[in-house]
């Protein structure tokens, strides 16, 4: 039964869903799939706004993350149908974290800001060393049970370092015609996303062991911040086009 409070516009969509589904469950489904549909916002801007060379890593990130997140959500949705070896999406989260880090670090390096320029180029190398040590000795990249909290939090804090460097340089240098440039929107979105999610990534494995329900609910915070992140990227693409 569809409750009378639901607006008319939603009703046709609801006919496609099981009849006993509640509003909270609909919202939960929307949030669960946000890692996919949120990326369609910047992807749709890309269809009619040509991006400068500087944005190429971010454009590539949107496409890369869209493919990975579709796979992640399908594996999660059809977990019971898929064979045991293929029904874990944790390694895809790890892969996305590695890809995200390298694409955004190349974006920041390309911005060519003078502050800590050499160190900023060194950070990807340090990240590679970390990947070798962590997945060579401590964790399994294809762990069936859990994603790598360590990898995700290191990725988040490294990107936060780049974001803070970006703002520091901007504060020190002479302002151009506009403060709210296209790269400002992208960097702000990324900064918000990694600032919110650093502790979520860091403690996620611990939470899944001790408080599974809380961990599942907490992922909604990640998903909401991810929607905002994509909105900021879309704004950046729109401004640049």
């Amino acid at each position: 039964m569809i409750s009378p409070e639901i607006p008319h516009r939603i009703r046709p969509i609801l006919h496609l869903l099981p009849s006993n589904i509640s509003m909270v469950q609909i919202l939960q489904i929307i949030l669960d799939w946000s890692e996919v549909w949120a990326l369609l916002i910047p992807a749709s801007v890309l269809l009619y706004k040509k991006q400068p060379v500087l944005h190429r890593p971010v454009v590539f990130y949107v496409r890369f993350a869209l493919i990975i997140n579709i796979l992640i959500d399908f594996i999660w949705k059809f977990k019971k149908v898929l064979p045991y070896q293929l029904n874990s999406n944790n390694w895809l989260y790890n892969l996305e974290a590695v890809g995200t880090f390298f694409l955004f670090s190349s974006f920041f390096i390309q911005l060519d800001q003078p502050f800590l320029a050499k160190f900023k180029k060194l950070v990807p190398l340090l990240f590679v060393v970390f990947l070798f040590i962590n997945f060579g000795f401590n964790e399994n990249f294809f762990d069936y049970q859990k994603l790598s909290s360590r990898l995700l939090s290191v990725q988040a804090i490294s990107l936060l370092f780049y974001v803070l460097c970006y703002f520091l340089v901007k504060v020190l240098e002479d302002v151009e015609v506009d403060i709210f440039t296209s790269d400002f929107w992208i960097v702000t979105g990324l900064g918000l996303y990694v600032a919110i999610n650093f502790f979520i990534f860091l403690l996620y494995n611990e939470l899944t062991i001790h408080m599974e329900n809380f961990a599942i609910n907490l992922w909604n915070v990640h998903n909401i911040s991810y929607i905002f992140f994509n909105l900021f990227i879309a704004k950046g693409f729109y401004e640049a086009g």
Partner: protein
Amino acid sequence: MKLANVDIRLFLVAGIAVMLLLFISFLLIFIFTQRKKLQYQHAMQALNDQQRNQLIEAAIRSEESERQRIADELHDEVGAILASSKLHFHSIKLGAGEYNQCLYDKGRELLEDGIKKVRNISHSLHSAILEEFGLNEAIKHFAGKFAHESLIEVTTRLDFKHYSPIKNEISIYRIVQELLQNILTHACATKIHLTSDYSDSELTLKISHNGNGLTQQRFEELRFNKKGLGLKNIQNRVLFLKGQLNFSFQSPDYHIDIYIPIN
């Protein structure tokens, strides 16, 4: 176990809140400092613009007063001398001889030409028509004289209906003068059409010709050229009037559009 769970939860929530607060405060500091810098830059830019406009205004005013001084001197001093010479010339009584008569006639003719030229120069340096009858009449008169002297067909459609005197009309008149002179010298045009339209907020002057004129891009190149002194003068006057000048080519004619804000 329960206590440890609460601790993790608290640690997590506090961690997210602190990170978020730190980032947002960082962002706000960034935006405020940038805004301040931007405001300062705008203020500096406004000051520079003001100083530049004052310099242009001073240059234009001194140029105009110098033109007026030369025009007055030509008219009152040289003109008077020439007129007196003409009178004396007329009083000469010649003896017999065809040769002397011929020289006398030639001399008189040259003297009259000289008087006419001095009067013309004096009038072009300082337009009395502009002062007495306003911009439209001055442009109409100048266009008529220009057509007569240069053998170019000049047509005008000037808005007399909505005309009202505006400040610094002399600068607009000089722009038109300079543009027509440029068309005559460089464009090899045979037809020029000049229109004016007055609205509540703007005067629009349009000049079109069938010669080899300028596009906006070419104008931008030439105005920074040492030889483009006339164009620089035009641009300075437009800046002084806070107006806008556009050059374009719409087949078959070249167009010059001038927009001058009123008040």
